């Protein structure tokens, strides 16, 4: 039917719309920076480079490959968490349960491994359980129209409580395979190395980039954040997508928990308290709009790196106390929220 459109229009008297005047290069750059899609990410990228350069200028030994790689080594679990959180926030939701789910994952891992289970069973089991919890949360949000904030709050209570059901105390892990995996370093040449956790986190990132950018499910995630109503009217599988993002977040939290237990080789009920705030902050600083619809997984990774580099600088500084991290994160969060507000307000 569209072929018939190609023939000359019946009302030739009407001029076709004039093409927009070409933008100046400065105008183009400004467009990119003021776009709610790319603006915040670029600001974050510049911020990261700037902070890294400042660190390099101030401290000896800061400007090294290993310091950079350690950002990934120390934060691989947070990267995975931020990836899951990105899915949720892109739809306009939020997941407060991730920290508690990380904790309960470390507890399950530690207790089962200590009672002689094989990691080959324990790790998949954790991923299945946390995905299932995500499914329950998603159903609660979709079917019963419970606000994401409250539904994930319930999941947070549940997961934290289950930690103590498993054990009140810290359980250390000394299962040989698991320990071996934890201490393995993958050399990159030149004295640089990373851990298997980094590889896992990066694989998760690559998959997430592909899913969000190049699959129908991924685009529907964005559609949900743009306008759920429009998504429904466009005939997109809105309901299914809305539930699945929480499954994704649950899965990522479980995986992050496994990585965290590799990092600490223990399970502890009070671990990762407030980690949900770090994950949310990383996602927001990474340029994802809290109202949903705009953002990239790579931006969230960048957000984690910014948090990591601030932490590193504070460590290097020595005199600067650790609580400045929280204040910096809060300040950055505020700046980016206001930036988002300004960029989106311009368009309405």
């Amino acid at each position, binding site marked *: *039917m*569209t072929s*018939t*459109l*190609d023939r000359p*229009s*019946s*009302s030739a008297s*009407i001029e*076709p*719309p004039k*093409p*927009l005047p070409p933008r100046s290069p400065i105008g183009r750059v400004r*467009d990119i920076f003021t*776009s*709610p*899609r790319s603006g915040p990410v670029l600001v974050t990228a510049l911020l990261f480079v700037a902070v890294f350069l400042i660190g390099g200028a101030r401290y000896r030994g800061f400007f090294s490959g290993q310091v950079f790689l350690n950002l990934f080594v120390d934060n691989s679990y947070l990267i995975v968490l931020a990836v899951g959180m990105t899915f949720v926030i892109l739809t306009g939701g939020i997941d407060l349960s991730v920290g508690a789910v990380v904790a309960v994952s470390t507890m399950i891992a530690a207790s089962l491994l200590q009672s002689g289970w094989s990691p080959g069973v324990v790790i998949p089991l954790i991923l299945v359980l946390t995905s299932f919890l995500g499914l329950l949360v998603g159903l609660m949000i979709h079917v019963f129209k419970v606000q994401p904030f409250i539904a994930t709050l319930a999941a947070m209570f549940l997961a934290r409580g289950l930690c103590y059901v498993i054990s009140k105390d810290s359980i250390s892990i000394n299962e040989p395979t698991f320990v071996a995996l934890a201490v393995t370093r993958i050399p990159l040449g030149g004295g640089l190395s990373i851990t298997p956790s980094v590889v896992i986190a990066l694989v998760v990132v690559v998959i997430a980039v*592909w899913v969000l950018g*190049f*699959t*129908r499910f991924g*685009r*529907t995630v*964005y*559609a949900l*954040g*743009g*306008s759920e*109503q*429009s*998504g*429904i*009217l*466009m*005939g*997109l599988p809105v309901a299914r997508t809305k539930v699945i993002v929480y499954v994704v977040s649950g899965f990522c939290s479980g995986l992050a928990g496994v990585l965290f237990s590799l990092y600490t080789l223990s399970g502890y009920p009070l671990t990762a308290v407030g980690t949900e705030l770090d994950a949310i902050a990383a996602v927001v600083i990474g340029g994802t709009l809290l109202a949903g*619809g*705009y953002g990239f997984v790579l931006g969230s990774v960048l957000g984690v790196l910014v948090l990591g580099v601030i932490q590193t600088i504070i460590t290097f500084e020595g005199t600067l106390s650790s609580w400045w991290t929280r204040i910096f994160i809060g300040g950055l969060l505020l700046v980016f929220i206001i930036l988002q507000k300004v960029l989106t307000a311009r*368009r309405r």
Partner: protein
Amino acid sequence: MTDTREVREHFPADGATPVVEMTGISILFPGVKALDDVSFRLFPGEVHSLMGENGAGKSTLIKALTGVYPIDSGTIVVDGQPVSFTGPAAAQAAGISTVYQEVNLLPNLSVAENILLGREPRRFGGIDGRAMRRRAAELLEGLNLDIDPGSLLGSHSLAIQQLVAIARAINVDSKVLILDEPTSSLDADEVAELFRVIRSLRDSGVAILFVSHFLDQIYEITNRLTVLRNGRLVGEYLTTELLRIDLVQKMIGKELTTLDEIGERAHADAVTADRPADYARAEGLGRKGAIEPFDLVIGEGEVIGLAGLLGSGRTELARILGGIDRADSGQLDIAGARTRLRSPRQAISRRIAYSSENRRSEGIIDDLTVRENIVLALQADRGWFRPIPKKRREELAQSYIQTLNIRPANPDALVRNLSGGNQQKVLLARWLAIAPRLLILDEPTRGIDIGAKAEIQKLVYTLAENGMSVVFISAELEEVLRLSHRVVVLRDRRLVADLENDGLTVDALLALIADGSVDDEAPLAPLGESS
């Protein structure tokens, strides 16, 4: 019901079969029959308009066709097949696409994605971005639209977004394209561009259902019209065979309830006596995209009726006078003093009250009690730290419940549990409680029962007798004529006439609303700009 219908059997001339045939459609909402035994047909290669005022059932009918609402009775046949859509996706699959007034696309995704999402070309299990942009570019070219398919939809004007929505609809291989008020926010050039696309689609055999409030556009683009009123079918007509004035009359209809208690207003005194002192005087007051600059004088104790179709600018004018929307041009004098109304609050402090046409969403506070709703505006004006004494609140509530005959007569009842007419009375009571000098009533009698309607009309009459200025909006012209000293006519967002209600007739008003040309025999003399 069949007696009110005029379904002509002779078109389309070639005896083509309709692509959509809806028969005997009824839809019940709680307490309301939104559609009552309505039939509707749509033929390939025509532009068909659905006409009607507020509550006529236009959008309900469209939603029934697109699977948003389930129907309670009747049949829908598409392409000879009886269908029963479970949702918009199912309707789309059957070739029925809709472009809504509020562009229902995704501003955060690219133009190409908005056109093709859900049907995107794939490669290696993922979306093939390049193929998608290529396909989108083809479709946009077909619409003569030169924009980058990779750009964000939100970065384009509403008009272009509208065309992108159409491009999406075309891609689905639509047999039926529904355009629900696509032109309400477009300027003349953009409308021309849209019409070019509509014609081209029509010529290719698509059936187009076009809804608009602009009569000029209806007569320019449509082949046939179906008119609805109060959820019922009035008739189906060829556009060329239906005079504008007849169309307007069919849309507005004749309300046959006469209210003997009021009788005819003594117009004589309005004309013979001196004009009352001015209470409000607007000069060049206007707001871009809502209402063209207008001049209007409202005298003390005068009732001004606003007549015009839905979307004519009647509500927009009233909202500016009531301080709900800010004017962006012109000036307003209230009681001789230059005034700028920046918020409803400022209007209220000057004793100007605007009662919204959207009773539920902008009027009543449904979870508060009758008493609280009545005192709300007065209390807000006094400020929270100066509560109205309990006794006074009780008196206010009791006296308005009595005067306006609000049922149930229980000040503690939640307003959500009242009938529409009683909710309207509560809203009226809220505004009367601030002792307004200018009361603006936007469709206060819509959707309420005859008894309540008569009471409200009587009230307006009495209030004006006692010196209150009233601006009264109603889709029922008899009602406007019965109550008003002067009638102001609006069309296409413009004030087109300002007339003394001295021998005005419904027919004369209809003529003005329809196309502004005054019949020769009609004894009309528009007032001077600001005499």
